[in-house]
């Protein structure tokens, strides 16, 4: 299982970007020797990763390489069988209370939006703040409107998800996750179910979010996005982290043959 990049601990500080965010930041996610199986199928193999607070990470790799499975392990939508995952100083175990406390701090955006169709946009956004954070309704609605403004659809607040376009739905999904004031945001291919003309509106929102200092883990094949906002790009294949590097290095000078092949393939299109 040994591969040169994962065997040594990766320290983001060394290649800290030059936008003034350099300096020692505490680790907010630590994954140590993590394995996962689906039945007999070994999906994730010895993953190690530390993410500093405020870091923006893009994960890419071929289909079936375990990218979704990996980020879904970070908020325990999937269970890992070996190794450790520590999010914001809480270790993910079978303890439901710990899982729920991690999920409160980790927002997630899905490929298929997964808005609740029986609730309006505003209700979608307020649901969790009201029931989980116990925020008073008025306050939750005010916060929700703030975030809806940030994703540029405050005028749709009282519509139902089915009345919105895909791009709008995905922006609502981002706002809904942000309403919980999470410390980490996970994105699983947020733009790949969208028509090309809607991709930009969602990416713009994500770029804006990245600028606000949010810790982000983002599975995406939008290489332009990776180049603009990522502090680090991680390449996964066959359930392993094959290579990780800052974007300029990753794209101009990939070290692993598998990475080179993958980049060749996607840059052709």
């Amino acid at each position, binding site marked *: 299982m040994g591969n040169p990049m994962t065997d040594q601990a990766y320290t983001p500080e060394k290649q800290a970007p030059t936008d003034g965010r350099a300096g020692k930041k505490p680790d907010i996610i630590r994954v140590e020797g993590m394995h996962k199986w689906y039945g007999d199928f070994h999906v994730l193999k010895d993953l190690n990763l530390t993410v500093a607070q405020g870091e923006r990470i893009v994960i890419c790799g071929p289909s079936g390489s375990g990218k979704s499975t990996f980020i879904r392990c970070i*908020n325990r*939508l999937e269970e890992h069988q070996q190794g450790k995952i520590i999010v914001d100083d809480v270790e993910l175990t079978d303890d439901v209370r710990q899982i729920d406390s991690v*999920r*409160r701090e*980790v927002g*997630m955006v899905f490929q298929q939006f*997964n808005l*609740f169709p029986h609730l309006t946009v505003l209700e979608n956004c307020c649901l969790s703040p009201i029931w*989980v954070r116990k925020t008073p309704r008025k306050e939750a609605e005010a916060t929700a409107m703030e975030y809806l403004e940030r994703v540029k659809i405050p005028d749709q607040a009282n519509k139902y998800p089915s009345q919105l376009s895909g791009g709008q739905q995905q922006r609502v999904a981002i706002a809904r996750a942000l309403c919980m004031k999470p410390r980490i945001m996970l994105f699983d291919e947020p733009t790949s179910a969208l028509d090309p003309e809607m991709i930009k509106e969602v990416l713009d929102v994500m770029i804006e979010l990245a600028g606000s200092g949010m810790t982000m883990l983002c599975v995406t094949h939008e290489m332009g996005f990776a180049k603009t906002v990522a502090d680090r790009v991680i390449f996964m294949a066959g359930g392993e982290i094959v290579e990780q590097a800052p974007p300029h290095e990753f794209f101009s000078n990939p070290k692993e043959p598998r990475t080179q092949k993958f980049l060749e393939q996607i840059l052709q299109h």
Partner: protein
Amino acid sequence: MTEPTMKAPRKAVRPVKWMRENLFSGWFNTVLTLGVAYLLVTSVGPLLNWFFLDANFVGSDPSACTGAGACWVFINQRLNFFIYGFYPDELQWRVNVMFLLLAVAFVPQFIERFPGRKWLGIFGIFGLPVVGYFLIPGGSFGLEAVESSKWGGLMLTLVLAYIGIIASLPIGILLALGRRSEMPIIRGISVVFIEVWRAVPLITVLFMASVMLPLFLPEGVNIEKLARALIGITLWQSAYMAEVVRGGLQAIPRGQYEAASALGLGYWRRMGLVILPQALKMVIPGIVNTFIALFKDTTLVLIIGLLDVLGTVQSTVSDPTWQNVATEGYVFVAFCFWVFCFGISRYSQKLERKLDTGHKT
């Protein structure tokens, strides 16, 4: 607005054109149309005659029925029995109060924009059973007690159906959730419960409840026959309800469960706020179907000696003072059931339309 709003063109419907397109398109449809028209013409007349024109409405005994049509005098005369059973006359106001509350709670549900409609509905579901619990049997608050053996007629039918419906839905929901639980013990219990009750005919359940249950109960514990029947009906019905609800739960995409989990909602909130509202909405037709079936199945209590509306009519029809009134009696029973079942069905259609928010997804 830069352009004037345009209305979609309305389709003009001309009767002759409509008939040609819908009733006489092709020789087969023409034959069918004519055939049906013939049947209608030949049957409507006699039916009208029997129901109204040749029927007798006023009078006080069988001799008033002189016409060739229906003898509605019979229904008139025995209406009290058909509605209240043996419930004492001077206490029937208590049942009437319940009828009134039932109407107050549910009739407004059909009227859009009725003020406080929602609260009346909530009262109907949660408050009404509580009021009924004290009012109908009496025995507290200075109300004279009326044993359940005296209850009967339409009132008994409604008690059975109402409690069966209101209790079986929540139990069914819990069983459905249990059957999909990740905990093996809870799942196992739910599966066994559902499969056992669903595999037994209601008649058997009622027989067991009335004859066998007392044998199993410890000495000194005595549950009334009506209560036993109610428990039997409710549990039997909740097994059916559980399967209907499970169908809805299964139809909810996994992404909904995941999104709710990712937002930090715990199991009960996830189910109560996200999954069940969607799942139940999806299976409203199935739920209502089950309600209506239950409403009609309550007539089976006849075989354990409880006189529901069908029972009261049945026992009166065989009374020698009234002869040949069986048809009238059964038409009356059918009408009673139809009114309630049709009401339930209409309401569910309204509800379905109102709750429809997901046009595309």
